[in-house]
Every structure is written in C-alpha cells, then in structure tokens.
C-alpha cells in the first residue's frame, strides 16, 4: 500500500525529469530548424509573400553568375581553415612546450579574461593597432620607419583576409586553450608526461605523442565550432575583412538587406552555399583528423625521441601565444585611449590632449544600450543556466546521461552558420506576430548561450561527489532539498563562472540581436558594429571599452562572490 503510494509519484517525477532534456533540445533546435526552412524555401525561389511562388534553381544560377562568388567562397574557406589551424597549432605548441611552467600559468592568466571579450571589440582593437595609421605605426614613426605619413599599404581589409584571419586567431586561441585546459584535468597528463620523459622523450614530442591525442579527442567539438564560426563570421569580417568582394557571409547580409526583394532569393541561395561549404569543410577536417591520426601513430610507433623539437617549437609557442595575447590587450588599451582622445593626428604616439567629452557625448547612447545588453544577457543566462541545471539534475536523477548524439545536437547552433538560419528566423518571427523586441532576441540568445553554459558547467557538475547525495538522502533529505541546500551552494563558483561565460556570449552576439530584434533592440555590440561603418574611433573606442567592461564585470563577480561568501570555508577554495 505505502509501497505503491511512494512509487507512483516517483515515476511521474521521473518522466518529468526525463522530459527535461528533450524540452531543452526543442528550445535549442526548434529555432534552428525553423530558420533553415525559412532559408531553404526562398533559395529555391519560393517566397510567396513577395509574390514569388514558383520553385526554380534561378537563385543558384544567379549566385554562381555573380562575379565575386569564387573570391568570396575562397575567402570563407581559407579564412576558416587558416584561423582554425593556426589557433589549434598555437594552443598545441603552448601546451606541449610550456604546460606546468610558470610562464604558462602567467600566459593562462593573461588569456583567460580575453576569452570573454566580444569578438567585435577585439577586432576593433586589432584594427586600431595594425592599420598603417594604427598605434604600432604611430609608435615607431617617423623616427624608426621614416613614415612621415601612413604608408599606403593594405593591412586591414586585405583581399586575402589575412587581417581577418589574425583577428580570429587572437580570439580563438584563448577559447581553445581554456577548452584544452579543461580537458587536461581528465587526461592524467602529468603522469603521462612523467612516463614519457622517463623514457627519454623531449617535452614537446612526449606531449604530442602521449597527451595530445587524449586532449584533442575532448576538444574536438570546440575545434569544429571554431572552424564553422571562422568560415561564416559576420561582425569581425565587417571590421577586418576585405570588401571587394567581402566574405560570403557579409555578402549574404548585404543581399538580405537590399530593398530589392528578389535579392532575398540569391541571399538565401548564398546562405545555403555557405552552409554547404561549412559542412564540406567539417568533412575535410574530419578526413584530416584521420590522416593526422594515422601519420601520428606511425610517428609514435617509430619511437623517435625528437629532442631537437624542444629547441625550435618551445620558443615559437611562447612567442606566438604572447603575441596573440598582447595584440588583444594592446588593442583594448588602444580602444580606451581613443575613447578619451582629443585631436590625435598621425604620427603622434599619443593624443594631443585627453578629454572626457567623448564619453559625455556618447553616454546617453551607451547607457541605454548597456541597460538593454545587461537585461537580455541576464534573462538569457537565467533561462540557459536553469535549463542546463535542470538537464544535469535530470541526468543525475534518472541516471541516464546525455548521449554523444544529443551532445552534437546541443552544439548544432554553433556548428550551423548563423547566417544560414537567422534570416529564416527573422521571417518566421514576423509571421507568428512576434515582430521584434526583447523576447525574441532573448530566445535567440538562449540558443547560443546554452551550449556554452552546458560546456562550462557539465564537468564541475558531474565531478560533484555523488556520495554527498547518498549521505544527505540517508539523513532523510529530499532530492530537491539536496539540490538547493547542498549541490547548488557547493557548486556556486562553477555555476557563476558558467553564467559569466553565458553572459559574455550574450553580450557579444551581433547577428541574432540584429535579426531577431528587427534593428529595434540596440545592444552595445550592435551599436558598436553600426558605428564601425562610420569609422568614428572615439565612439567605437567608448563602446568597445564598455563591451569589455560588460563582460569582465560578471567574471569578476563570479570570482569574488564565492570567495566572499565562502571566506570562512576553506574546503571550497580548492
């Protein structure tokens, strides 16, 4: 009798918890699929609202008749592969040559906060830094270079997309490095290295042979995300990329916003082409992985100790890593200087005067968009963190962990180029009457925030000692009370960190905000990118600084709050 009374609610509760991951997946995948449909139909000529109802492949023939198509395609592909390969290479060299050293810890501290800085702010900083009239040129001119005037050389917006690639690399290195560091914790790398070195392997070769394969297996999805992202990025490409022609994704946005409706068809076709390119690139990367694995295995089996590798690759790793970090930091500093600059002509290394005028002037705009930014970020992070915790708790209660396939689904919004489904989402939102505003934007942000929150919280959550749960339950505590009085407080730090990561992701979103907000929702990022076309460095500087503060502050809170709350609890400061 009591038996049944207990069992029934338990199974009802179980099916509730069992349904949670599914609900989360629907929230995430739903908009992506709907958006893709909204792209596929116009790509084949079907846009009934505009009186275009006949299926055809004309959009594609138009697309391939555009004389910029191959240049734009090449840019997308080369930028994507180059940025991904370089970022991965720098991270690998750094980890192989330096992990465990003081220099490495120092660089790690330097790079970690950079992970959160929005791509747009980083790109602005780098543009300010490396342009022919940029800060570097100013500092060494004319006394060293003889450049009385900025040299007429194409550094940013170069047709090969070199500046774009470098801008992406500086931003992806911190991302991959932190992913790799998280993976390192589970790879027993110290022990492996000890074994390898005792067998006479060098630091780099030993690491590559014994640790890299384990770590790579864990950061594989993030690497693929970097590849897909680098191929199809819009905001960074608008700031650092070439314009004659622009990369494919930027061209899609241009066509998408053309008053001539028929351009939407070619835009959709181009968006699908972009999607196809990304899928193909992921495939090529996968083949590359296989080949590398085979060659790597052969290399391992040969048993060469490769001690000479250390001499060349260690300095290379630390130099590239430092350069990457410095260029972002100096760029951000440059944004700060411009934001308070009076007249600052070339080749002065510093402005003639400093003035608060720029800030006073832009403050009304900055404060408005700051409030919107914070509101959207707070809402989307709250939703994402709640869903992720609910999923992880469901996993804990039902004992079924998320399958590898489901994991891929969670990553789907990051692997499918935003440009391929967001335009479709925009049309879809309009048709359901949810025209614009905060809610659709927040929902779209959740789609992109959630995977990162999931990524960041899963390991700490799963690593929580399950015996704590056993003990608490045996003391007569319900699962819900265990969650709220034990697990959440004990995991306060990782939860806040995951929230800060999510916050940074939300603050940095450009395309989802622009398209789901119908232009009405002005965040720091959309305002900053809108300003980029105007080239007013003081305004861009002020917005960039604010963007940076908006993401650094939550990280500071995530670090300091648990420290303060648990100031008398040493056991939580492991």
């Amino acid at each position, binding site marked *: 009798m009591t*038996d049944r009374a*207990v069992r029934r609610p338990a199974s009802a509760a179980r099916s509730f918890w069992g349904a949670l991951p599914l609900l989360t997946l629907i929230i995430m995948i739903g908009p992506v699929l709907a958006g893709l449909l909204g792209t596929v139909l116009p790509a084949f000529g079907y846009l009934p609202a505009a009186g275009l109802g006949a299926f055809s492949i004309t959009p594609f023939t138009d697309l391939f008749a555009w004389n910029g198509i191959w240049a734009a395609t090449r840019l997308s592909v080369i930028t994507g592969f180059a940025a991904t390969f370089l970022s991965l290479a720098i991270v690998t060299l750094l980890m192989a040559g330096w992990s465990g050293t003081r220099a490495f810890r120092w660089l790690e501290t330097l790079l970690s906060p950079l992970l959160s800085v929005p791509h747009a702010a980083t790109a602005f900083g780098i543009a300010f830094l490396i342009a022919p009239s940029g800060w570097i040129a100013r500092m060494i001119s004319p006394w060293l270079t003889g450049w009385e005037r900025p040299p007429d050389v194409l550094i940013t917006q170069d047709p090969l997309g070199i500046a774009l690639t470098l801008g992406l690399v500086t931003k992806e290195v911190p991302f991959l490095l932190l992913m790799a560091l998280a993976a390192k914790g589970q790879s027993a790398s110290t022990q492996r290295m000890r074994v390898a070195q005792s067998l006479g392997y060098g630091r780099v070769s030993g690491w590559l042979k014994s640790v890299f394969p384990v770590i790579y297996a864990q950061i594989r999805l993030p690497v693929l995300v970097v590849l897909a992202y680098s191929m199809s990025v819009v905001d960074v490409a608008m700031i650092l990329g070439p314009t004659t022609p622009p990369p494919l994704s930027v061209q899609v946005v241009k066509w998408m916003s053309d008053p001539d409706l028929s351009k939407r068809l070619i835009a959709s076709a181009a968006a699908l082409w972009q999607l196809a390119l990304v899928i193909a690139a992921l495939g090529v990367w996968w083949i590359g992985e296989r080949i590398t694995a085979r060659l790597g295995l052969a290399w391992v089996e040969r048993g060469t100790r490769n001690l000479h590798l250390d001499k060349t690759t260690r300095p290379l790793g630390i130099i590239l890593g430092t350069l990457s970090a410095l260029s972002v930091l100096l760029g951000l500093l440059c944004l700060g200087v411009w934001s308070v600059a009076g007249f600052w002509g070339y080749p002065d290394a510093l402005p003639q005067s400093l003035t608060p005028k720029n800030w006073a002037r832009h403050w009304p705009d900055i404060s408005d968009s700051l409030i919107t930014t914070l509101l959207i970020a707070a809402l989307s992070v709250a939703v994402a963190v709640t869903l992720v915790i609910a999923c992880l708790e469901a996993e804990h209660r039902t*004992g079924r962990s998320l399958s590898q396939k489901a994991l891929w689904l969670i990553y789907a919004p990051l692997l499918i180029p935003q440009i391929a489904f967001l335009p479709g989402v925009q049309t879809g939102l309009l048709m359901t009457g949810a025209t614009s505003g905060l809610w659709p934007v927040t929902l779209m942000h959740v789609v992109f925030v959630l995977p990162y929150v999931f990524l960041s919280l899963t390991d700490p959550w799963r690593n929580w000692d399950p015996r*704590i749960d*056993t003990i608490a339950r*045996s*003391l*007569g505590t319900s699962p819900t009370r265990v969650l709220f009085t034990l697990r959440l407080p004990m995991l306060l730090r990782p939860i806040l960190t995951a929230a800060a990561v999510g916050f940074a992701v939300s603050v940095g979103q450009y395309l989802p905000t622009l398209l789901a907000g119908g232009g009405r929702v002005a965040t720091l990022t959309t305002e900053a990118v809108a300003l980029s076309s105007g080239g007013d460095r003081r305004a861009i500087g002020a917005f960039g600084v604010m963007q940076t503060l908006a993401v650094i502050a939550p990280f500071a809170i995530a670090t300091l709050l648990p420290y303060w709350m648990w100031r*008398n609890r040493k*056991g939580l400061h492991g």
Partner: protein
Amino acid sequence: MDNGLHLKAVEICRGGQPLLQIDAQVAPGEILTVMGPSGSGKSTLLSFLTGHLAPAFAATGQVVLDGSDVTAQPPEHRKIGILFQDDLLFPHLSVGANLAFGLRGGTKSERQKTIETALSDVGLKGFETRDPATLSGGQKARVALMRVLLSDPKALLLDEAFSGLDTDRRAQIRDLTFDHARKKNLPVVMVTHDIDDAKAAGGRVIQLGP
C-alpha cells in the same frame, strides 16, 4: 516484531551477470561485516541498501527494516544512515550546521542543545561555528559520525569508514562508532577489506566474490 535489518534473498546483477547474492538478518546492535576483494560488489550492496543503485545494476530481493519493506522507498524515507571512508562533511556549512542538517524535528533551542551535547559527547565541545576544513581527520570523522546518528537512523552502514584514518585514530574512531551504534541498538552492516575491522566488530563475517 521482526526487528533489525533483514536482507531477504538479495541478488544483484550487472548487465545480466549475477554479481552477488546475500541473505542475512542483522539484529539490532549487531555488526555484520562484509568482506571481499575490490570488484566483488561490496559497495554496490550498500548502494542497494541506501537506494542509490546505479541503473547499470539490477537487483531482486527485499530490504526489510524493523518489519517494513523499504525496497521501493526512496533513500530519504529509509532511515538507513551511511558513513564513507571520507568524512564528506558539507564544506559550505559550519560544523554545527552539518549536524543540524540531519537532525529531525525539535524547536530551535532544543536542536541547539542536542547539537551541543552531541559535540561534547565526542570531545568537540564548542566546535559549532568551526569551518569543517579546519578540523583534523579524527575530528572530522567524529562530526560525520554524530551527523548520521543525530538523523536518528534505524540502521547504519559503514563503507570502508575507517580506511582513511591513520592507525592510531583508526581504532579510536572505530570503537567510538561501534559504541554509539550498540548504545542506539542499531543493526550495522560494515563493508571493509581490513581484517582488523572485522575482528573489532566481533560479529559475523560474510565473504563476497570470487
């Protein structure tokens, strides 16, 4: 009345393969020692008893505590306490709050009083506000013991509970635990790989596994 802990024809399988079988009656105040090499399913047995069996395992049989079948009960309703090798004090709570966590009922002042008494019983008078992380290993073990006892369990499980302690403290804590369990008339199931533990318990010993 069928007092004590009764494991009726318990059989645990893993992926269809039988892992262990046990049928035992542990009287109040009795200590049943379960021994066996690692992989023999000692800890799995305890998980089954607390109600935390992982989905990879399947179990048949019944757990009857003081005459009522608790096999289908969720862990928090079973009143079966457990101690692990690590103290597992909740690191974000003070020593006093750790004890209060398991304590059932009572007014605020009664609860305070109970905790005070419990702490001085184990020589930790005035430790209420201390951070558990600042306690020595032996002190932590005593707090953990008090925490489970204050929750008023009807049975106690010991999962290698003394293996983490150095030799001196080990005997001390073990005696303390057994004393308290006997004083409260609790049936105890102890899983250990240490023959000293088994000897000290002085009860029946069941050998598991190959």
